[in-house]
């Protein structure tokens, strides 16, 4: 075990996998000499050379589209989108090409590639850098989509994603890159896709989140404890595949549920979580499930993002309402 930030965990996972498997390569904007704008790939070019750690022209469609071609040539590319919001310029390649090539070719061509991208707000970025767009990709059959919240999962899910023969998007928490530290197992550490993590035990209500919203929920849960409310926190980790069984079990255990995400309300992945839980466990619910999300607005400029993002107070208020405590 080593204590690391999420960034360090990502970097160690990439280095580990590139040492283990010589077909693994990294391509993206500024990933080489600079080591990525966040340094997630720092030092990799020195160890693995410019043919395996490739600075690409600024053209996201070509980064993802070429990664597909590289995968078909027998390599196992890990493409980095500098920010998930920039994925709009690769959207057609991700959703119409990468996600569908196995089906289109009836199994002959199966691009095993990983797309890494940081996302999420609260770090005062310019426009397009913070948007939580996970639902767009979750709505794309053929893709798998994971969103780790901890350094351990950042490594374990990334290793599992690279080795998965299906294309996987690994959405990393921008805010947590340097802020969130944790224990990371040394060497081999794989976290199977499709399993929730119970981040915190609790008996009155189950908070469901992924990525940076997990730490938000944990903070809210700690503060609610002082009020006598015991909140469990479920970290979804994997959005596709969704761990329906684990999710439902964790909600049924308390009978109450609050879903928290940074994306806007309408058609956010929270809607899928709520719908799934009520389909599977309606009669075990003690109260309507509540969502705490961003409003249905574009991600705002940094000067007002605190009014956009879910915060601890909003989570706490939602929990109190759910458990029937008067404000």
């Amino acid at each position, binding site marked *: 075990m080593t204590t690391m930030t999420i960034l360090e965990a990502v970097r160690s996972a990439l280095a580990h996998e590139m040492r283990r498997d010589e077909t693994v390569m990294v391509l993206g904007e500024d990933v080489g000499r600079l080591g990525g704008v966040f340094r997630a790939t720092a030092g990799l070019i020195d160890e693995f050379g410019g043919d395996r750690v490739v600075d690409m022209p600024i*053209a996201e469609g070509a980064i993802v589209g070429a990664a597909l*071609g590289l995968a*078909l040539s*027998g390599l196992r590319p890990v493409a980095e989108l500098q920010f998930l919001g920039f994925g709009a310029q690769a959207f057609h390649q991700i959703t119409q*090409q990468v996600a569908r090539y196995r*089906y289109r070719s009836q199994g002959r061509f199966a691009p095993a590639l990983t797309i890494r991208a940081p996302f999420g707000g609260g770090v005062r970025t310019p426009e397009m850098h913070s948007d939580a767009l996970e639902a767009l990709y979750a709505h794309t059959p053929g893709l798998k989509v994971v969103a780790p919240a901890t350094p351990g999962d950042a490594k374990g899910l990334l290793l599992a994603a690279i080795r998965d023969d299906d294309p996987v998007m690994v959405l990393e928490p921008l805010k947590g890159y340097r802020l969130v530290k944790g224990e990371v197992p040394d060497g081999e550490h794989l976290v199977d896709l499709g399993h929730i993590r119970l981040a915190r035990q609790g008996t009155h209500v189950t908070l469901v989140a992924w990525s940076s919203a997990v730490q938000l929920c944990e903070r809210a849960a700690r503060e609610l404890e002082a009020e006598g409310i015991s909140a469990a926190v479920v970290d979804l980790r994997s959005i596709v595949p*969704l761990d329906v069984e684990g999710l439902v079990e964790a909600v049924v255990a308390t009978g109450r549920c609050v879903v928290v995400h940074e994306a806007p309300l309408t058609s956010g992945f929270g809607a899928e979580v709520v719908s799934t839980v009520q389909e599977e466990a309606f009669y075990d619910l003690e109260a309507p499930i509540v969502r705490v999300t961003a409003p249905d607005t574009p991600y705002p400029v940094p000067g007002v993002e605190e009014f956009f993002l879910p915060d601890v107070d909003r989570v706490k208020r939602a929990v109190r309402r759910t458990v029937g405590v008067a404000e």
Partner: protein
Amino acid sequence: MTLDPAERRSALELMKLSRAVDRYAVGLQRQGVFGTFGEARGQEATLVGAAMALDPAVDWMVPQYRELPALVHHGVPLELLFLLYRYLPAGFTVPTGVNALCNQVSLAAQLPHAVGLAWGLALQKKPGVVLAFVGDGGSSEGDFFEACNLAGVTGAPVVVVVQNNGWAISTPTSRQTRASRIADRASGFGIAGRTVDGNDLDAVHEAVLDAVERARSGGGATLVECLTYRAGAHNTNDDPSRYRDPDEHAERERDDPIERLEGVLRAEGAWNDEREREYTASVRARLDAALDWALAQPEPGADGVFDHVYKNPPARLERQRREQLSGGRE
């Protein structure tokens, strides 16, 4: 290196096969046996000339969707393409051992794949050049520019063949670009570029072979623009009478690549009426056999929706499959 007489005769036969498939498939579409079909009519010299510049054993072909004779030359069985035009999932695969990617509906989206594939082969010191087709319409897409630029940057062994056939559905090439030559863009990407008469089999073959050899010897990418003409409709849903000038069409259609090549071969004594009769009869039998095979293939039912979406499908997707097959909810 030019084509020898035997090669040119087989080129003519493949071009005639393509023309026969067009007629046959349009007829079947009108009868409701085939789905939407786009003829290659008028573009056969470009397609066959380019395909014959490749070594199917090591080189890759990356199609758009109007490249039937090129794909057949590269090893894709005709009957499989007939299954494709029945629009059954199994028709969309490419048999193992055939170095061709799938037909591509999104215009120019295949070009970054072609560059990545070529680059990956080079990185792994594997032999092989990648030839990708795109049209004049597709050359306006962002993927065209991104891919050609990346081809220049990486030095990937790739050849992009632009079939400039004058039309993108109803939009003439003059509405795609103000430039007189699409191949002129090559210098902006730092790659080689060349425009040829796409209705001249030998000219196409010579230009593409030159590009393939450049790629094979480490000289990087080439953009080859073949000036040809879409003699047919965009596809069976299209109505060119709404946008095509009949006189201009008649004029363009007169420059037929098959007639051109056939005239030369007849003058050389390599083609005659007897050969024509024999070949026509053999083509008819081949098309009927391919259709019989395609019609005999079983329909996969609901599994055709679910199979091959993932290697390891999510549990909830497998549940959806079971519910679809059983008609009940779990």
